[in-house]
């Protein structure tokens, strides 16, 4: 009996590790295939964004005839959670778990929220639109159920993306971070493009049953992809699990994060640039259609031009950053390219030059790609190892909020101009030119802000006695540390650790 037991035990021990979701701690460097797998969580994020902002937006207005203002309100709801990203990231930084995991529990919970939101969403939307017997039900049932569904998906997306990016940052060396950032952006973009095409194709012949199947299918795909992405990624850390640490409160961690460093300046730059590039997102297509008389197919190709410019931008940024250039310089070039891009777009309307407009759009995409890549890499680099989640949460909070405000503001400004007295006597571009000009101004402000930030960095590295390497803008970053974070001694990050507990 005893021998049977020991045989069984050794058999199980032999096969078990393959079937357990734990990473092999002894892995030397994280191979690209594993990073590719991890980046699948960005595909689900992209899918959720497309479903909320694109597909369901249209389905609710056209097929379900829900009032447009109610639809806009519902779609804006997930934005409520964006500022909480910093807090979510902070919570994952200090998470104590017997398994020594910090990121996996949060990504899993975020996935569950996203799944739950999508699972009830089609029914909530059908009730909201008064489908069959729901027409007799009290309106608050549909409204609150739809609001809950959108809130769940929003909370899930914010959690998954914040903590997922933190996990990616944990896994790779500082010099490899540009590669990861590029990969994450490309996967987000590919996820959005692919799911837009697939949802569009699936919902061609709309029926309520089909809506239920598509949205719930998205829920299942979300869980499946996130499980695949998460499998064996985060190493278990018994030392961390057993360590008794006193963690700073959120406000203290935040003060530590912004103290004497350029974190706030970087966040301002991100807000300015994201708003500068983001406002045009929903206006380029109607501008092309109304001002330049492009067909629907042509304006759809315009979105492809914008995305293609972004992809080129990510590729160039990855290449340049891996060569050791400063991420802020890349972001600076991105914002700078955006200025002539929007000048071209503004000029193309009155001159009726379609080619000018297309070139301007491509450059706007290129600039946005460079800017996004540069600022996210800068955020990753400037984050102390113990505060990676907080730093990426702050990045996500600012980025998502700025992008949401930009899209809303762009639409509101255009509609306000169109409702002015004698608006029908305006030239067709009159509603768009002020918005594009505002974007141009925001990008100029971002260029100036990055310049000021670089000056401040130079001053800081002079006055403080820290030795700041060429590509490490932050004195606390440890670019020269040859030990991967997973294999540091159990004392763990002695420098940061002391700073955290000193509070």
């Amino acid at each position, binding site marked *: 009996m005893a021998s049977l037991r020991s045989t*069984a*035990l050794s058999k*199980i*021990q032999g096969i*078990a590790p393959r079937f357990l979701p734990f990473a092999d701690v002894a892995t030397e460097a994280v191979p690209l295939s594993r990073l590719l797998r991890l980046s699948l969580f960005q595909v689900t994020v992209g899918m959720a964004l497309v479903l909320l902002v694109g597909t369901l937006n249209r389905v609710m207005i056209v097929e379900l005839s829900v009032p447009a203002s109610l639809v806009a309100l519902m779609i804006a709801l997930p934005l409520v959670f964006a500022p909480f990203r910093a807090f979510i990231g902070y919570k994952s930084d200090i998470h104590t*778990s*017997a*398994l020594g995991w910090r990121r996996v*529990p949060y990504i*899993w*919970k975020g996935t*569950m929220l996203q*799944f*739950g939101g999508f*699972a*009830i969403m089609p*029914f*909530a939307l*059908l*009730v909201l639109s008064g*489908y*069959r*017997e*729901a027409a007799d*039900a009290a309106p608050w*049932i*549909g409204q609150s*159920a739809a609001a*809950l569904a959108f809130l769940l998906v929003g909370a899930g997306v914010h959690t998954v993306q914040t903590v997922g990016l933190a996990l990616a940052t944990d896994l790779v060396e500082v010099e490899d971070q540009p590669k990861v950032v590029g990969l994450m952006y490309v996967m987000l973009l590919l996820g959005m493009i692919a799911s837009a095409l697939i949802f569009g194709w699936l919902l061609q012949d709309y029926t309520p049953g089909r809506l239920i199947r598509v949205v719930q299918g998205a829920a299942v795909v979300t869980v499946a992809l996130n499980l695949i992405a998460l499998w064996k990624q985060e190493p278990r850390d018994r030392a961390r*699990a057993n360590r008794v640490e006193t963690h700073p409160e959120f406000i203290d961690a935040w003060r530590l994060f912004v103290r004497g460093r350029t974190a706030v300046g970087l966040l301002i730059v991100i807000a300015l640039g994201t708003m500068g590039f983001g406002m045009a997102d929903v206006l380029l297509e109607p501008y092309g259609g109304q001002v330049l008389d492009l067909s629907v197919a042509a304006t759809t190709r315009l979105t492809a031009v914008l995305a293609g410019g972004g992809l080129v931008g990510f590729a160039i940024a990855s290449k340049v950053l891996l060569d050791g250039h400063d991420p802020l310089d890349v972001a600076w070039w991105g914002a700078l390219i955006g200025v002539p891009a929007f000048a071209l777009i503004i000029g193309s309307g009155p001159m009726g030059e379609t080619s000018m407009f297309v070139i301007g759009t491509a450059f706007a995409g290129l600039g946005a790609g460079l800017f996004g890549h540069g600022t996210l890499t800068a955020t990753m680099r400037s984050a102390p190892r113990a505060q990676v989640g907080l730093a990426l949460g702050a990045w996500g909070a600012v980025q998502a909020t700025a992008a949401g405000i930009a899209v809303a503001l762009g639409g509101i400004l255009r509609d306000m101009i169109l409702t002015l007295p004698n608006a029908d006597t305006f030239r067709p571009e009159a509603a768009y030119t002020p918005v594009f000009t505002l974007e141009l101004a925001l990008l100029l402000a971002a260029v100036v802000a990055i310049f000021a930030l670089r000056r401040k960095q130079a001053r800081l590295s002079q006055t403080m006695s820290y030795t700041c390497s060429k590509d490490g803008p932050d004195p606390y970053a440890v670019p020269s540390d040859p030990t991967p974070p997973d294999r540091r001694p159990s004392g763990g990050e002695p420098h940061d650790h002391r700073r955290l507990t000193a509070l």
Partner: protein
Amino acid sequence: MSDDPDKVWPTGLTLKEAEEVHSYLIDGTRVFGAIALLAHVLVAVSTPWLG
């Protein structure tokens, strides 16, 4: 490793670790149940199947 008295046979997890894994399962089931209940209520509002 194997002579650790805290280990739970046969997974090699300690009791605390096993409890944590279990807590994910329990939480997941609860969330799943609540979502399913809500979905059923919503379906019943639009297409009632009980009378």
